[in-house]
C-alpha cells in the first residue's frame, strides 16, 4: 500500500482519572484506508483511547489531529468533529423510542442538516447492504442483538465519517450473532474504510487488520502487521496475552506427547 496521508494522528496522549493514569504518552497514526486493530487485556486503556478520540473523555496531555487539524488545541466544537468520526459502542445504544430508519436519519438530518429524501436513500442503501432493509420501520426492541449492532454501524456510516471507531462491538453478542456483525466490518475494510477497531476476536483481528496495536497498562507495547504479530510477538506481555487464546492448542500438544 502506498503511503497515504494520516487521517488520525495521536501524539503523546495522557489520560488520567484523578491520580490514576489510564493512558500514558501514547502516540499512533491511522492512515487513510488503513485498518488498525487495538488488542490487549481488559483495563489496558484501549476503550478509553477510543473515547478520547471523539471527546467523550477529556485528556490531560498530548494532541489528537484529525486530517491534520488538532481537535484538542483551541476551542473544539465537538459536535462538528464527531460528525467526521463514526463510533459504534459495545452496547449498540440505539434510541429505543425511534424506528430503525429514524435512528439512522437523526444524525444526517439534525446534525448535518441534510434533506430527508436524500438521507433516506443513503440509509436504505446501507441497510440493504447489511441485510436489514426490511426492518427499517421496526423498533430496536424488536431486533436481535446482532441486528441492533448492524443498525448501529449503519447509523454511524450514514454520517459519511472520515474514520470509524469500533469499541468491542461483538462483546455483548451471543456467539451465533458475532459473525454477521464482523462480516459487515470486513465488508467495510474491503471498500477501503479507515477504521480503528478494539476487539477480543483474534481471528477477526488477524483477518481485518493492516496493523495490530498491542496495548497494556495504558501504553503501546508493540505494533506490527498481523501475520508477524500473531506468529512472532516480540514482547513477553504480548506472548502471554496471546497464550490465553491458545488454550485449545496446549491440550493437543499434551495428547501428542502420550
Amino acid at each position, binding site marked *: 500500500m502506498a503511503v497515504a496521508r494520516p487521517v488520525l494522528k495521536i501524539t503523546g496522549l495522557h489520560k488520567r482519572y484523578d491520580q490514576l493514569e489510564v493512558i500514558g504518552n501514547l502516540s499512533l497514526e491511522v492512515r487513510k484506508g488503513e485498518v488498525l486493530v487495538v488488542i490487549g487485556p481488559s483495563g489496558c486503556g484501549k476503550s478509553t483511547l477510543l473515547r478520547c478520540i*471523539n*471527546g*467523550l473523555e477529556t485528556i490531560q496531555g498530548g494532541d489528537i489531529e484529525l486530517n491534520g487539524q488538532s481537535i484538542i488545541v483551541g476551542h473544539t466544537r*465537538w*459536535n*462538528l468533529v*464527531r*460528525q467526521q*468520526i*463514526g*463510533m459504534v*459502542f459495545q*452496547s449498540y*445504544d*440505539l*434510541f*429505543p*423510542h425511534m424506528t430503525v430508519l429514524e435512528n439512522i436519519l*437523526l*444524525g444526517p438530518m*439534525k*446534525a*448535518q442538516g441534510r434533506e430527508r429524501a436524500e438521507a433516506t436513500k443513503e440509509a436504505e442503501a446501507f441497510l440493504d447492504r447489511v441485510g436489514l432493509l426490511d426492518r427499517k420501520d421496526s*423498533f430496536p426492541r424488536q431486533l436481535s442483538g446482532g441486528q441492533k449492532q448492524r443498525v*448501529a454501524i449503519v*447509523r*454511524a456510516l450514514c*454520517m459519511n465519517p472520515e474514520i470509524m471507531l469500533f469499541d468491542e462491538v461483538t462483546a455483548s453478542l451471543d456467539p451465533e450473532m458475532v459473525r454477521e456483525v464482523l462480516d459487515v466490518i470486513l465488508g467495510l475494510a474491503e471498500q477501503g474504510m479507515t477504521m480503528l477497531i478494539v476487539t477480543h476476536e483474534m481471528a477477526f483481528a488477524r483477518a481485518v487488520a493492516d496493523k495490530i496495536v498491542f496495548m497494556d497498562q495504558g501504553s503501546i507495547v508493540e505494533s506490527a502487521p498481523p501475520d508477524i504479530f500473531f506468529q512472532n510477538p516480540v514482547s513477553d506481555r504480548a506472548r502471554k496475552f496471546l497464550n490465553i487464546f491458545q488454550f485449545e492448542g496446549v491440550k493437543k500438544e499434551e495428547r501428542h506427547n502420550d
Partner: protein
Amino acid sequence: MESAISIFLEGRNLARLMEGVWITLKISAASVLLSVVFGLLVGLLMISRKPALQAATRFYLEAIRVMPILVLLYMFYYLPDKNWGLHFEAQTVAIGVFTLWGTAEMADLVRGALTSMPAHQRESGRAIGLTEGQVNRYIIIPQAVRRLIPGVINLTTRMIKTTPFIYFISVPELLKVGQQIVEISGMKNNMASFWVYGFIFFLYFLMCYPISCFSAYLEKKWQN
C-alpha cells in the same frame, strides 16, 4: 330507585354536586399543571452535582412527603393568619398546597426518569454529532417524557382523590356536598347514603377514567 332519584331532584342537590365536581376538577387541574412545571425545574435541580442543591431539594421532598396534607393545609391557611394576619383565599391555599406536594412528587419522578436513562444514550447521541441541546431535545426528553407519563397520570388521579381533605379549610368540594345531602336526606331515607355515595363514586370514576384511558392509549402508542 324512585326514592333515590328524588334525592337528586330535590332542590338544587344535583347542581350542588356538580359545583362540587367543578371545584374538585379546578383545584386538581391547576395543581397538576403547576406541579408539572415546577416539578421539571426542581427535578433538574435534584440531579445537579452541587451538594447544597441536592441536599436542599432532598430535604424539600422528604419534608413534604412525611407531612400529612391536613398539616400542610393548616400551615398555609390557618398559621399565616394566626401569626401575621395574612389571609389567603381557601381555594388558592388548596392549589398552593397541592402544588407543593405535587411538585415534590413530580420532581422525584423527573429525577428518576433522568437518572434511569443509560449514560450511553447521551453518548451515542453525541457520537453522531448532535449538539447538547439536540441530544436533550431528540433523545433525552422524549424518553424521559415517556417514562414520566404513568407517574403524572397516577399523580393526577391521586390529586383528585385527595381533594376531599380541603373540607378542612372550609371549601365545599364534592364529597362534602355529598355528606351534606346525605345528612339531611338520611333521616327520611335509609338508603340515602348508599345512593349519594354511589353517585359520588360514579362521578370520581368519570373524572379519573378518561385520564387512565389516555394514559393507556399513550402507553400502547409508544409500545406499538
